[in-house]
């Protein structure tokens, strides 16, 4: 082994095989992965279609609108330093049973949150699994910030509730401690614009507590970056039924 050539050859072999297995193969598998079609007769799918929760016939659906830009801002601001987007299976943690980490925000249902699978991150350049979990998990943050829509039927009521919830989200982003005194999240003031109020003011203007409120005649509104980020975070809804071809679950037999 005392020659440079032999050393490099052995070293190369030592590196090459694991690089193939741990890097290239998972990447190739990811690139080959395609959205999976739902079949209408699958369990849970019919109801979800009626809910309007499933937008397309495939899982996952494409990133629409500003979500891609929101993802970029999420990574630039370092959100993934403190927030994960993973629901681990029960052998690795309690994530599936955490209150408000899934679709059901109240923790009333016995049904656990679905664990995250590879398809959940299909349209992302880099899945934001996150480095630490200092803040709550955001795998299903979309349900948390869409508001309490249960029981609302009129379109204007739903729109008003969604606008209220969105404003809540902006408030979180602007001054986290205005909501939770113990929060260790930073405020992202550079994502907001302070400007003179025109007429009745913007519908998106932050409803701030007195100690944070801007001077009279001024309002604080989210910048386009904050809007993109909101679109991304509100789109994080991974607690959806999966097509049978992913889960391998058999549809229940028809009762006679």
């Amino acid at each position, binding site marked *: 082994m005392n020659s440079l050539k032999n050393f490099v050859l052995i070293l190369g072999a030592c590196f090459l095989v694991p690089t193939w297995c*741990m890097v290239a193969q998972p990447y190739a598998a990811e690139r080959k992965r395609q959205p999976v079609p739902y079949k209408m007769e699958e369990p849970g799918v019919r109801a979800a279609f009626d809910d309007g929760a499933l937008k397309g016939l495939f899982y996952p659906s494409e990133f629409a609108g500003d979500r891609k830009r929101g993802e970029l801002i999420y990574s630039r601001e370092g959100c993934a330093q403190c927030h994960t987007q993973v629901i681990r299976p029960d052998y690795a943690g309690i994530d599936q049973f955490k209150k408000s980490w899934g679709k059901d925000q109240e923790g009333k249902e016995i049904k656990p949150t679905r664990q995250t699978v590879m398809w959940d991150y299909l349209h992302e*350049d880099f899945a934001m699994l996150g480095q630490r979990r200092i803040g709550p998990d955001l795998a299903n943050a979309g349900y948390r910030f869409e508001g309490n829509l249960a029981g609302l039927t009129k379109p204007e009521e739903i729109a008003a509730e969604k606008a209220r919830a969105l404003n809540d989200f902006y408030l979180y982003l602007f001054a986290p401690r205005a909501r939770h005194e113990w929060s260790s999240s930073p405020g992202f003031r550079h994502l907001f614009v302070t400007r003179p109020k025109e007429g009745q003011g913007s519908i998106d203007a932050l409803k701030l507590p007195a100690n944070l409120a801007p001077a009279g005649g001024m309002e604080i509104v989210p910048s386009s970056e904050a809007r993109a980020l909101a679109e991304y975070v509100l789109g994080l809804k991974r607690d959806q039924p999966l097509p049978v071809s992913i889960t391998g679950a058999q549809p229940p037999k028809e009762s006679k």
Partner: protein
Amino acid sequence: MSQEDQSQPLPDVTPEDILQRAAIDRSTRLPVLFFFTSAAAWLLAATLLGLISSIKLVAPGFLGIDWLNYGRSQPAFLNALLYGWAFQAGLGVMIWMMARLCRTELKNPITLVVAGHFWNAGVAAGVTGILAGYGTAMKWLEFPSFVWPILLVSYSMIVVWLVVMFSARRKGHVFISQWYLLAACFSFPWLYLTANLFLNVFKQTGVSGPAIASWYSNNILFLWLVPVGLASAYFIIPKVVGKPIHSYPLALLAFWGLVAIAPWTGAQELIGGPLPAWIPSIAGAAQILLLVPMLAIAFNHYLTVKGSHKLVELSPSLRFTFFGSIGYVVTSVSAALLSSMTLSRYTGFSFTQDAVAMSGIYMFFTMSMFGAIYFIVPRITGCEWISGGRIRFHFWWSAYACISLCVLLLAAGFSHGAATDHWDSDMSGAITFSKGYLIGRILAWVFLAAANAVFLHHLSLMVCNRGRKAGEATLIHQPAPYDQAELVITTERAEA
């Protein structure tokens, strides 16, 4: 020389040897001092960023600048520490040791200094980029995507001359340190190129992205920091103690064990993540297997120092290196523990990962590099360190602070994980329970900042040629009279 000769005492030093060593030291003087000085400056900058980011986690409103939000200052700190300090200190040590061990003079110091300037510019641009909000979310690869070609090219420009030196080495025995240095020459370009090609060029990595980033970061730890730190330890310990490595075949076996097993590790950080289960499983198993080479190395180091433990007290180089060797054991054991699926329930995605990173980068690597710098700088500047008191201050404050840093991060991680492990708890419990430890971490960073400021000042004086011009080597303590005789014998050998 065959391997059997290793068990013989070191051969006597001839006058030609001394002249040749002086010539080698002169040839490496410029690049090595350049890398050490800029590394020490980056270390102080990184320490201050670490201080800011640890304050920001407890008091998010601190300083009121959004550029310093935890999400930016934390990656800026870690990348400054890694690419600014660790890599440059490592490169300085690599250049000098490779030249000394190959017994060849460095032919082109200017090329290395130019490449070093590019490296520094790349790191500065990267850290500023992260703070300005152009970073990425990839672990230890947070620099904006334009930075990586600069770093890769300048690193390759430097190490290619080390490989040239190796192939032009004086024929004969190859020391274990040389294999480690050579492995480090090749491993960084391999890891960095692979990770950046997939993450920054091919893109659309989906869930394979975090797996690749974890593979990269863990391997930077075990295939770059560990080889360079161990090369330095395998060099410094025999030199100062005046004995060859206890068992050379064991050292070689441990080297190949490390190189063969380490590239499989990394993805165990994502236990329970949305990956095929075999990826974290194999990675975790490999991480635990790495305990075997670690034990062989630690045993070898221990047996080499055995009987000369008095020197650990006196010699600055050996004291720091010895501490670093213990840090290597701590890093390997804690990394193996965190690969356990049972513990991952509490440790997954928590501060415990930071504890492993800090014990690897600081407790092991940084302390080993301090030891090497205390050994190398007097030889290439031709003057001795100014005061043993400052070295003592540097050692104790660094040692105390980096031990408490790792312990506090582990405790914060476990308490955070345990507090989150209840179905209807929000994050308030987790944040309140870990707060005390995180405040303690701020204090540790204050201590490290003081220690590193003293170190930078001491090193700058040496570089500016204001060290002690003559006399005995600077020791941490003045030895008691009855130790003198023993010490004279060993330091004469140490001059080798």
